[in-house]
């Protein structure tokens, strides 16, 4: 019996684990290796350059601005989809008529490709006939044609807003799942005790939603690191690299300039950042699990 169990473990795990190891683990580890070379993407010859690539990161002005932009993106990703998703979940959870339809509407963007989302939002920001400028013109009754995506001051933030539009639906359904787990009698007791709606939300619902908040915040941060497609479509990191993120900078250095060694060094940084966040996330999940069961 025991022997046959071992046989089946090996037999069933062999294929999935070897595919995973070959396509995910091995490339991950060899990224570190290439980070120490000056490989150009095509030639069979390359040299080891030691820590040169990693040293270059600190003097690379574009890397620094990409790192800052990534942090900005993360910070907004924590705030915007979380608060919006929570508000929508609370509103929908109040048994409002048409709740399921609203849920579908807010969730719909998630099934769209970032390519399509990017393109749609390019039209919203379009200076001459875009929706945003049209609304501003309508309200102020004055000519307005600010090019949101072509100005270094606003390009990054415009993209993040578009990204948040798509990310909000996920936060909302996670919060909705958390809300259904709160026992109805508990809320009834609050009502009988004379708690106002605001007190109920502030002192009962929000604390009980902590596990959902941990998930929402962590996923937002992790997904913001992955934000590449929509940026590529909307600004391509421009104008003048003002909206570059680490993922974008890594792509540019590797596949535009063919500095694959340097690109690998950037991806190593990206990996370490992601690893830190994921470890924090798992730790928080465990803590929350212990408290809330």
């Amino acid at each position: 019996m025991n022997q046959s169990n071992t046989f089946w473990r090996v037999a069933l795990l062999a294929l999935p684990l070897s595919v995973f190891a070959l396509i995910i683990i091995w490339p991950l580890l060899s990224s570190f290796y290439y980070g120490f070379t000056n490989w150009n993407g095509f030639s069979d010859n390359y040299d080891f350059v030691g820590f040169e690539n990693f040293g270059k990161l600190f003097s690379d002005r574009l890397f620094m601005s990409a790192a800052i932009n990534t942090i900005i993106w993360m910070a907004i990703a924590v705030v915007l989809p979380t608060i919006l998703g929570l508000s929508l979940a609370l509103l929908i959870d109040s048994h409002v008529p048409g709740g399921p339809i609203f849920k579908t509407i807010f969730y719909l963007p998630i099934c769209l490709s970032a390519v399509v989302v990017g393109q749609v939002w390019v039209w919203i920001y379009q200076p001459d006939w875009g929706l945003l400028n049209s609304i501003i013109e309508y309200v102020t009754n004055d000519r307005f044609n600010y090019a949101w995506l072509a100005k270094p001051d606003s390009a990054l933030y415009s993209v993040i807003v578009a990204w948040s539009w798509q990310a909000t639906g996920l936060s909302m359904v996670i919060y909705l799942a958390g809300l259904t787990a709160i026992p109805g009698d508990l809320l009834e007791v609050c009502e009988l005790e004379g708690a106002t709606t605001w007190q109920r939300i502030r002192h009962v619902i929000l604390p009980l939603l902590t596990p959902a908040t941990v998930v929402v915040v962590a996923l937002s941060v992790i997904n913001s690191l992955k934000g590449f497609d929509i940026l590529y479509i909307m600004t391509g990191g421009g104008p003048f690299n003002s909206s570059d993120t680490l993922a974008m900078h890594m792509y540019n250095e590797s596949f535009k300039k063919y500095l694959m060694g340097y690109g690998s060094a950037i991806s190593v940084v990206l990996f370490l950042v992601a690893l830190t966040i994921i470890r924090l996330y798992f730790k928080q999940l465990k803590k929350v699990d212990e408290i809330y069961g």
Partner: protein
Amino acid sequence: MADTASLGSASGEYVAPKRFNPWPVVIFICLFTLAILFLAPTFGVLLSSVKTTRDIALGDLWAIPSSMYWGNYVEVLSNPAVHGYMLNTFLVAAPATAFSIGLGTLAGYVFSKLPFKGSDLVFLLVVSGMFFPPQVILIPLFRLFNLMGLIDTLWPMIIVHTALGIPICTLLMRNFFATVPNPLREAAILEGANEWQVLTRIALPISLPAIAVLATLQFTWIWNDFLWPLIFTQSDEKRTIMLGLVFMKGQYSVAWGIQGAMSLIASLPTLIVFLFFQRFFIKGMTMGAVKG
């Protein structure tokens, strides 16, 4: 925050006599306004696709059209390149979805029903794979497939999406198999069945809902993917639809109506999957997220 704040003082300190309660109406109006704002981008594409480029350039994109113009759809649907893009995307998405679910089922079964010393750690390692940005493995995979001569074929995309799907598929299948009662498996084994028979004849039939969840999620993600085709394809014949969309944007640079029709046609398969299997979709998203 204004939305939640406005909920406050719904039932004040004193017990008011039963009368008209404005809050459901206020909440409905709040949600309705937000819903319109949320739908505006999608609605814009829809509007653009039935207008001529001239109308759009004149600033009429956001107005309800007095007459429908179908020329954009005719143009896109009669373009043979678009047929190729759609076919390629399907040829990548269908097998990669099936393979990743198959591999995830195998791994999920072991992690759930045949745990071993250290299996939790291996499981955690596999699952954490879904959180890393894909840029981390981009360069070595590019080199690998380049050496194998597979660049500019569909194979790298099928292989990579199969592998990238393993974490979420393993996670969901393991969680689902955990609900299959152990005595059921033990009874079958005593009757002389082996693990493969237990998996295919008992566990899998019960797990069809989980497979439906994974199929909708995986198909949507792979269909919508942009990064991997961008790296792995070079010629127009091998492009997937999302890459084709970007490429054709250059070709029809100011033909916004055509771009709108194209976006809609490219999104149609995932929209259909979403509208019909929304329940599965949401379940998968929350399960994958919460139990992660």
